[in-house]
């Protein structure tokens, strides 16, 4: 064993020396050719490696065809890079036309006309025109994915080469906003799909976005290179963009320390965020989805408003946010959040922590036993454990469980669940995993079946005037609170971590989250090592 140790030691010494030399060389190189750091124009060229959590973004099991992909927003970074975006989401829910140039409503809001940037071409040389967009949207509408557009569509037609007309059966205010979290935002080359067939296209997709595919190992590594014919002159800034799937926050942090990646999307582990901030740029994104507690009002015990109220009163969210989450996230009382539209920080009459009232209610009920569940994510699990402890003080007996996505769905479809820690809300409350997803009678993932709430939410979705819409959402939030349908906790948002020298929206400045993470416009990201 002795000489085993010796050999190990000497090998170590050699590699350490090599590393030192390499570092010195890198330092010389940057100081010699540099001088650009700090200047206004971002560095062009270079190659960037982005790490993604294999449990969420780092999974693209079915490939990257917008119409057959089933991971939706989880794969948005790859999709955005390959296909570009018709509309981008800026900060605070602002919608920015990108490959589209604008939109207009007519026919009382039932007709939406979208104008396209003229002269765009897919990387296979075929034109990205209105016909291509219509072909894509019609294909998307038939997709099996829950991330497909969910508009009340009557027809989709091309008007000339650069305008697309969508006729709706009813006014749907969030239609443009819902481009961003659905597959409709990504336009694939119809010629390439027809030429390769769906299966092959999903592996080597062709779009008109800022990057094109070099190689693609599903769920593992995606290598992209600059699309020289991208519509925006001088963009993308990077020559090469590589996405790598890693096993989670810790693995990603280790990899970044070792220089194996320069960006990590969606870090949520508080202990690591603190640590990462010492070495990297950590930017907390703007939250759009608060953590909430869903209560199943269809079965006992939460078919009784007193049990629901007891839960409101027994929960003290501040210590949870400060001890588990380092006070990173603002408390919320409704389904809106700082990164989205119609944000309302407080809801009048919200029941805050009051142990005496909680105890009294539990006593009136003759005791309260709750099954509390959540998704199998560290922060969510820790939240349920903390809640269990707090509720115990009010005499509530809680058993907790965490589920992977499949079993979690089974819990909902089985309809026997009682309480779930979830997120509810979106940058537009009517888009994606918005308020309806958790509170409308029609959603299988809702614990509330209340026609009055349904009509409020429908009314809001059908209102084009923004201030009228927001006031309807405020009413909905008050109504949810009045009925004690479910407490809201804090406006959680993940953080993006970037090495020094990386700049770009979402990496050095915050953006609004789409479903979980914001859409980073990768064409605007630059990287100058040592800069």
């Amino acid at each position, binding site marked *: *064993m*002795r*000489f*085993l140790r010796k050999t190990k030691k000497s090998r*170590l010494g050699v*590699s*350490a020396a090599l*590393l030192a030399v390499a570092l010195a060389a890198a330092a010389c190189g940057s100081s010699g050719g540099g001088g650009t750091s700090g200047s206004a124009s971002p560095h062009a060229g270079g190659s960037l490696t982005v790490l993604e959590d*294999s449990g969420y973004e780092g*999974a693209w*099991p*079915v*490939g990257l065809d917008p119409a057959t992909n*089933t991971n939706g927003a989880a794969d948005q970074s790859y999709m955005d890079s390959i296909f570009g975006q018709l509309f981008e989401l800026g900060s605070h829910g602002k919608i920015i036309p990108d490959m589209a140039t604008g939109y207009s409503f007519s026919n009382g809001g039932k007709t939406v006309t979208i104008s396209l940037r003229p002269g765009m071409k897919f990387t296979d040389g075929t034109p990205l025109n209105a016909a291509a967009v219509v072909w894509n949207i019609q294909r998307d509408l038939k997709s*099996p*994915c*829950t991330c497909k557009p969910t508009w009340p569509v009557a027809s989709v037609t091309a008007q000339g080469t650069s305008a697309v007309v969508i006729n709706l059966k009813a006014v749907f205010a969030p239609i443009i906003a819902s481009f961003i979290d659905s597959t409709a935002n990504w336009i694939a080359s119809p010629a390439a799909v027809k030429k390769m067939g*769906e*299966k092959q296209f*999903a*592996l080597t997709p062709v779009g008109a976005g800022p990057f094109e595919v070099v190689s693609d*190992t*599903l*769920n*593992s*590594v995606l290598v992209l290179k600059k699309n020289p014919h991208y519509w925006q002159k001088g963009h993308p800034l990077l020559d090469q963009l590589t996405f*790598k*799937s*890693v*096993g989670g926050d810790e*693995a*990603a942090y*280790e*990899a970044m*320390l*070792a220089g*194996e990646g320069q960006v990590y999307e969606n870090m949520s582990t508080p202990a690591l965020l603190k640590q990462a901030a010492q070495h990297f740029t950590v930017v907390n994104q703007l939250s759009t989805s608060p953590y909430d507690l869903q209560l199943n009002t269809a079965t006992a015990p939460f078919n009784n408003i007193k049990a629901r109220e007891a839960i409101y009163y027994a929960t003290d969210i501040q210590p949870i946010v400060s001890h588990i989450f380092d006070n990173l996230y603002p408390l919320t009382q409704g389904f809106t959040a700082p990164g989205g539209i119609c944000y309302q920080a407080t809801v009048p009459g919200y029941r805050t922590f009051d142990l005496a009232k909680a105890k009294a209610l539990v006593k009136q009920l003759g005791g309260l036993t709750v099954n509390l569940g959540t998704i199998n994510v560290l922060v969510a699990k820790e939240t349920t454990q903390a809640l269990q402890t707090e509720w115990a003080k009010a005499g509530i007996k809680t058993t907790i469980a965490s589920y*992977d*996505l*499949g079993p979690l*769905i*089974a819990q909902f479809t089985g309809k026997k669940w009682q309480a779930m820690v979830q997120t509810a809300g979106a940058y537009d409350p009517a888009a994606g995993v918005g308020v309806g*997803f958790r509170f409308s009678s029609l*959603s*299988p*993932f809702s614990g509330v079946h209340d026609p009055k709430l349904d009509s409020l939410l429908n009314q809001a979705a059908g209102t084009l005037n923004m201030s009228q819409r927001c006031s309807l959402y405020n009413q909905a939030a008050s109504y949810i609170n009045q009925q004690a349908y479910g407490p809201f906790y804090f406006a959680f948002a993940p953080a993006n971590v970037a090495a020094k020298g990386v700049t770009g929206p979402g990496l050095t400045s915050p953006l609004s989250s789409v479903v979980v993470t914001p859409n980073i416009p990768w064409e605007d990201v630059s990287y100058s090592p040592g800069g």
Partner: protein
Amino acid sequence: MAAEAGPAPAGPPAQGVPGDHSPGTAQWGSAGRAVLTSPALRVTGKRLLSAVPVLWGVTFLTFVVMNVLPGDTAQELLGANATPAELQTLRLKLHLNEPFWVRYWHWLSGAAQGHLGDSLVSGQPVTSILGQRLPVTFELMIYTFCLSVLIAVPVAAAAAYRPGGLVDRLSMMLSMAGLSIAPYVLALLLVLIFAVNLRVLPAIGFVPLSQSVVGNIKSLTLPALSIGLPLACFYIRLLRADIVEQMQSEDYVVTARAKGVAPWQVLIRHALRNSMFGFLTVLGLNLGTLIGALVIIEPIFSLPGIGQVLLQSISDRDVVVVEAVVLVFALIVVLANLLTDLLYAVLDPRIRYGRPSA
């Protein structure tokens, strides 16, 4: 993981039990030195034939297990708010609504003709998935293998040089400790030391050989150590015991010593060399052990190998991919056992391991 491959070879090489068809059986050590003699060929043929029902059993068991699991690929793919109609559409497309026997027969008849099918999830041909992933896994296996042997042989020789001496005691103690450490714990410790604190080796990722040789070796070093170190500890104990036994009892050792050959020369030239034959067979048998460890170690280091695919495919209920991977694993175990048998017969006709201990 060890359990499945470990005990397999356990009894047989040692006992040489008559009628035992497990690998390494000593009885046909008498097959002779030349591998090409007809008995050896016949035995090879027989063993290959007997592997067929085993492989069939493995595929059937896999299909049954995957079928019993709740949920299916459609549910896993469509996730959260899929409607029953959407699920039904996808199930029809993937033939998931057909009865168990029909699906198994469809798969089996395809596999028998060499068509392993397309992944239910990605639609990729399974062969191309294997082609992408297997090289990584194989490289890791080979690296681990070399590493464990390179550590074990010199340490065992040094320990056996003076049985009961300081080196021997120390190496026996450390190897027992190394043997008792869980590979996943070792992996985390190595990451903590070499990647997080010293930052000399990468914690994750894989650099292909074609891209950079040094990078490739560096990217596989920690994973290979995580599996290889405990394995090496096991080999150290095994090899040391055998060398010691030889040094104490074999006639040629006594003769060599009487002739005045230096003890370390006897050890290396005779005892170690002779022990290597038996050692080789154990190495072969241990391939199966290695495979199991890969499944856990690969994801820790984000290696794009077959282990990751296997875990993902199980949770996606992608029976086609799981079948292919399990088949490859089983094939490796079966072939390794066969090869070991042959090596054993060819290299060491005196059946050292079967001899009752002195």
